[in-house]
């Protein structure tokens, strides 16, 4: 597999703490909508990954079977051959690399159809870009076990065994939910997490229609009070319109 050197130029310091595979990825995106395709490839390129964009199912299938990729992001509704058909054929040929399906259909039957065809994960449009990144990371990390005893950002430390949180060595009292929220933010430090990701991963809420945005905002405000109010620099940052990020520097 051909790999290019990891770029470490314009990214904020938080990225250095990225867990799992830190190497440069080769990703195939199959998406017929030009704007979405362009946004995805630019967004992922900024992350330092090498992106190949295919606009039809045929192109995607040709590229996937002739080159090697680390991950395929596959749209379901494609002109000509649908993503599901492409995926089935690829799997029949014995291609085992992770595939993330993108679709506007979110009924249970559609999910089952996609997963049965051999997809590793499933993302419903419209999705938040940070969420796509998080899912891709999760797919690439798959199978690699993590055994981290503590998480750390600047002077903020979280001991996962004793469940003790300190800032500047001063202990911070957190509720269970606040602890889980902070843990998720710490595990994704330097990366933006959307409210959808928090709802799904921290609140374990599978239903997108559940009105959790206000609830999440209140929890973030409380966490910020405990973690940031008496300390510098501020760590909990709100990225307007997208979500939140734990970072020592402003982006």
């Amino acid at each position: 597999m051909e790999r290019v050197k990891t770029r470490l130029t314009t990214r904020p310091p938080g990225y250095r703490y990225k867990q799992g595979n830190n190497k440069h990825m080769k990703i195939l995106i199959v998406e017929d909508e030009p704007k979405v395709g362009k946004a995805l490839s630019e967004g992922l390129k900024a992350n330092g990954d090498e992106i190949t964009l295919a606009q039809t199912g045929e192109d995607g299938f040709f590229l996937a079977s002739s080159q090697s990729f680390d991950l395929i992001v596959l749209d379901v509704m494609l002109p000509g051959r649908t993503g599901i058909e492409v995926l089935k054929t690829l799997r029949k040929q014995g291609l085992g690399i992770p595939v993330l399906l993108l679709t506007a259909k979110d009924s249970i039957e559609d999910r089952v159809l996609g997963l049965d065809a051999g997809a590793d994960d499933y993302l419903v449009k419209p999705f938040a870009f940070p969420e796509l990144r998080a899912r891709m990371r999760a797919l690439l990390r798959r199978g690699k076990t993590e055994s981290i005893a503590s998480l750390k950002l600047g002077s903020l430390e979280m001991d996962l065994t004793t469940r003790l949180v300190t800032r500047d060595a001063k202990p911070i009292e957190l509720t269970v939910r606040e602890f889980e929220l902070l843990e998720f933010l710490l595990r994704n430090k330097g990366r933006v997490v959307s409210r959808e990701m928090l709802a799904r991963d921290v609140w374990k809420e599978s239903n997108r229609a559940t009105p959790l945005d206000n609830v999440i905002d209140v929890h973030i405000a409380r966490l910020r009070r405990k973690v940031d109010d008496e300390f510098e620099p501020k760590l909990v940052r709100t990225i307007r319109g997208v979500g939140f990020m734990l970072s020592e520097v402003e982006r």
Partner: protein
Amino acid sequence: MTGFRTTLRTRLTLFYVFLLSVVLVLYAVSTSIFVWQGLLREMDQSLDRDLETVENLVTLMPDGSIAVNTGDQEGILLLEIWSENGALLYQSGDLKGQMLGPPVKPDDPSHPPNRSVRLANGMRVRVMTLPHKLNNQSVVVRLGVSETALREEFGRMVLALALGLPIALIFVGVTGYFVALRALRPLDSMARRAKQINAEHLNERLELENPDDELGLLGTAFNQTLARLEHSFEQLKQFTADASHELRTPLTAMRSVGEVALQNGGDTRYHHDVIGSMLEEVNRLTHLVDSLLILARADSGRVPLQRSEVGLLELATESAVLLEVLAEEKKQSLEIEGDESLTITGDRLILRQALVAIIHNAVKYSPSQGSIRVRVGSENGDALVEIQDSGPGIAPEHRAKVFERFYRVDKARTRDEGGSGLGLSIADWGVRAHGGLIELECKQPGCTFRIRLPRNGSTSVSSEK
């Protein structure tokens, strides 16, 4: 009228006429048979009397021949006298040599006693045959009488019946047709009127002459259907207007924010701010579209319930805990109590969605320091979840409408505070999908949303609003 055979009044008339003709023909035939037999019986009786008279006129001459004194006899005499062994002893002159039937058989002289025969000249005659003693000599007397008068009388009667029958049928047909025409005329006018009622004139109704007769009931049912249709149409119109407003508002915001930013230029920070603001609108639209899709799927009736045993108190607690922080922020008290063992068979996710929507609503509309109480219990075999808020209450004219899509009691209270305006609609659908209903009861202050669910999960709840 669309065709002669197809209109109801024609079919009704034809049916009357057919039924009446069957009845009349049966009547005429049986009457004729009865009358004919009566006439024959009368004739036989008079023949019997005539025979006695004739017997007195017959004398046996010493030479063995027979003489009949016909002197004062009126009309024609048709008489034969036969010997016991079958020889013709006398035949009256009026017979002109024609026989009154076949010769008398020696062994069975009197058989048959009475019968109708046809003479050689075509005359129909009723004949009576009787054995007779004439000076110790046995003879057989055969007397006939013409049936002509009787047959003419009978024929006249049959003719009268045959002529009267079609006249009666024509009369019944014509009257029946007009009676049917008259009875069904309201139907015609109803049909004409119904044709004029279309989507633009759904507020019109059929005029009913008598709401209690069959046609009136039909008309009433039709009018009720129209009323429901009109209501649905109004709702749809309102929904379309509301939905386009709700969808256009974030789109307008995104557009103007973007356009102004492009025009102004500005630094990166400003651009971040603009993009963030646009993304906020995108989130709003995303939530709105998600909710609309849930309702669209609900409307199509294709949402299968993933039923399982659901503990209601546990579910209510879970929903309340989820929203607890919002109540805490407003310093509201959120209390939950009830029967821990109460379970129903239902779709956990859909029920939870309904509970979250209603509790969220309660938190939103209760003032600071207010209280929200959630109670789980049962009544008449139904499971109940009551959510009582301490909000300003809902005026009676708004109560029925709070479950309508995009309906907001306070029109000024939009978007930021009011949410999408679809939460309660989704809750209402979710509860209905389980055969339940949501009752709304308001006192001053505060409203109680009472979710009523059937315990066995399949049938509807007992009380309907």
